[in-house]
């Protein structure tokens, strides 16, 4: 048996089939171990797949041995390899770092169910990333969504329930919109395989239903991806989820929806519907620009670290969409590399929020003052990650902003306006990051502030700090040597936009 050949399917089934074992295990530590091992295995698979596809190759896999339009195909190319790396990496790191936090926030008897749901969420996201079949994407989208609802609802505060319900309602509307879109495409082309659709959609009897399908798919996925006016479910969901879940979900969940959106739009619709690049760009760009500013402003007004990070995500997703809405190769590269860099920065940010909550029980600003003196390493890591969020040179965030500005310059007069917005929002980012830094370093610890709700065991603390340092270092490393992810991103971008030419 040649393992390399089976990489695409192993990517999904390793975590998927580990989930049932989690609930069969009585001990919660065992369930945690299974989750870590499965995440690690998925990460290893994604790394080896990435090394194969980095030069533009595509791994395809026919599940069940049935060839493409009849059976379900899986495909790993540079874009999906990058996504699988983000997802499994985020899961692995969050799980390792989150042991103490999980113990703090979840009752012991619920933990094995929690880890099973976690694995399912990850497997769902991985399944979307490697799928090459429109309906298969829907199925795995639902696995990941349902599992995400479960792990978010595990949050200890009752507001988590309201947040999850909103997420569930909007997420299901989004998924169903996507399903309608897929149905319309299927009605017009008779196939569900993405490559086959791309071939056949050019010859449909009438473009109207396909345009409607494009609309439904775009809106449905934008709902799931929390693109600006449809983001209302996201801040609350991120805010009230267990801290470890925020770190994982914020790093990858919305990006996977964007991945599907880009993949669909750039490979299926844009090459085959005349003028669709224009429609896509002009529909998405205003939303992206408003989202960037709106998210940053609300973040700057936030009074809670997790809330700040959640709203900053609205803004950062705006950057990704902005890059894509230029429909150029450079723009797309910036969008994809920003997915990676933002996952690093935002995942790291929520990890630090988790650490702060571990020591001080809450993430409210009134309770976090003086963290810098008591926990210098943690707040130091936040400074690095904050710089990456802003886009300070030498951090990963700078790379994507730089690419974005370069791409905008190609756009002529409009580009100047875009750059102005980007610069302004970066200033806003400076404000909100500075607010936290000031709090950490320049304000004294208030009298009687609560702290240390749980006794953090030394090995757990060590693991946690190790991961935080690793993420902070990665933010710097990929700011200075962006080689590998950038190669994957530009490979992916040229593949996506190559079809559009």
């Amino acid at each position, binding site marked *: 048996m040649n393992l390399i050949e089976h990489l695409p399917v192993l990517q999904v089934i390793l975590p*998927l089939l580990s989930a049932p074992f989690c*609930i069969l295990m009585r001990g919660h530590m065992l369930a945690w171990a299974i989750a870590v091992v499965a995440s690690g295995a998925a990460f290893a698979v994604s790394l080896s797949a990435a090394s194969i596809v980095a030069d533009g190759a595509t791994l395809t896999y026919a599940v069940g041995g*049935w060839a493409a339009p*009849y059976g379900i195909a899986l495909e790993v190319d540079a874009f999906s390899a990058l996504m699988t790396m983000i997802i499994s990496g985020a899961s692995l790191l969050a799980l390792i770092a989150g042991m103490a936090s999980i113990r703090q926030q979840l009752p012991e008897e619920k933990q094995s169910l929690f880890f099973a749901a976690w694995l*399912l969420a990850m497997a769902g996201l991985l399944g979307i990333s490697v799928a090459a079949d429109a309906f298969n994407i829907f199925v795995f989208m639902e696995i990941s969504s349902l599992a995400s609802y*479960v792990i978010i609802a*595990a949050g200890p505060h009752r507001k988590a329930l309201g947040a999850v319900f909103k997420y569930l309602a909007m997420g299901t509307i989004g998924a169903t919109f996507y399903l309608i879109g897929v149905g319309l495409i299927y009605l017009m082309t008779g196939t569900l395989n993405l490559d086959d659709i791309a071939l056949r959609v050019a010859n449909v009897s*009438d473009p109207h239903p396909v345009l409607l399908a494009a609309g439904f798919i775009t809106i449905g996925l934008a709902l799931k991806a929390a693109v600006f006016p449809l983001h209302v479910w996201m801040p609350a969901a991120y805010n009230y989820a267990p801290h470890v879940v925020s770190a994982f979900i914020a790093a990858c969940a919305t990006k996977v929806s964007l991945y599907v959106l880009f993949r669909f739009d750039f490979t299926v619709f844009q090459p085959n519907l005349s003028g669709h690049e224009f429609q896509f760009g002009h529909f998405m760009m205003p939303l992206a620009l408003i989202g960037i500013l709106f998210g940053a402003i609300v973040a700057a007004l936030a009074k809670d670290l997790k809330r700040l990070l959640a709203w900053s995500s609205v803004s950062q997703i705006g950057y990704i969409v902005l890059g894509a809405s230029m429909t150029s190769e450079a723009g797309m590269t910036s969008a994809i590399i920003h997915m990676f860099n933002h996952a690093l920065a935002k995942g790291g940010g929520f990890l630090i929020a988790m650490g702060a909550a571990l020591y001080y029980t809450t993430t409210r600003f009134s309770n976090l003052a003086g963290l810098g003196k008591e926990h210098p390493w943690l707040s130091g890591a936040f400074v690095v990650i904050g710089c990456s969020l802003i886009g300070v040179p030498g951090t990963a965030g700078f790379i994507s902003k730089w690419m974005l500005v370069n791409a905008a310059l190609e756009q002529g007069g409009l580009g100047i306006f875009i750059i102005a917005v980007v610069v302004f929002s970066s200033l806003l980012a400076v404000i909100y990051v500075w607010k936290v830094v000031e709090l950490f370093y320049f304000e004294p610890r208030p009298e009687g502030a609560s702290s240390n709700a749980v006794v953090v065991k030394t090995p757990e603390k060590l693991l946690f700090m190790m991961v935080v340092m690793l993420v902070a270092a990665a933010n710097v490393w990929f700011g200075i040597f962006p080689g590998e992810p950038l190669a994957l991103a530009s490979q992916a971008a040229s593949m996506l936009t190559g079809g559009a030419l």
Partner: protein
Amino acid sequence: MVEILNIFIMLMLVITALAMVSSRHLFVTVMLSGIFSLLIAASFLLLDAADVALTEAAVGAGISTVLFLGALALMDVEETTRGVRRIRMVSLIVVAVTTIFIVHATFYMPAFGDINAPIHQHVAPWYIQHVPIHMDIPNIVTGILGSYRGYDTLGEVFVVFTAGIGVLSILGDPIKNRQHRPAHNRGLRHYLIPRLVGRMLIPFIILFGLYVQFHGEYSPGGGFQAGALVAAAIILYALLEGEDKALQVIPMRVLYIMMASGALLYGGVGVAALLMGGNFLDYSVLASTPVAGQQWGILLIEMGVGLTVTGVLITIFHAFAARSNL
């Protein structure tokens, strides 16, 4: 002829849906949604989707009603707020615009039932032609579900599994929840006649469920429908005899094992195919001839589906019932 029947049924569907959304009494809404399920299932059958109709009947009219009622037993059945006028206006505009777009596009769609539409020309004929050759079973839907698109069905099983552990995680373990409640729960014991008849029917429902499970390759049915039927029988038992007795017959531990083992059985068949030199879920390598392999594969995965669905649905029912002290 059948189309004309369907026109009337669809008309009733729309009326029911309107009444469902406009009624202020939640119990009425749930009753109407039961009717909606019956009607839409009849409509599915008129549109030649026998398997889907069976599923909708088992799920919509049976399980879904039970779940809604189980949840409603815990809450006010009356809607108290009308909501903000502005929101109602905005949503009305949103849905109106959506509808206009859809209706506009319908004029450009292939005519209803046209055999020359691309949907009936491209992939589907291949399935109809090849299911008898590749796996030699009469029900083409089962063939596609189990083999050609078996990976989707694996996903479906895991969706159900996720729902099961999700409800358990959100509502908590039924056994633990029951310990806090008074033990006056004896089911429907004071209804003598229904109880006798109900008890008599339970074995028949389970028998029919097994028939649907193992006859799914020849007639409408399969693991999911069978699982829903068997679960419905157990739920009926719980309603008649009380939760405690039902939990004695099938304890939670067994339900956990059912949920996990069904999913693992399905995945295991796929992995076995992988180990025996085929692709994941390629049943052809499982037996001496590809056709026999396919048949074995489909039989096994359908059993996995049935196990998980039965386990999950019973678990979900218990989780709700333990909260509401049904």
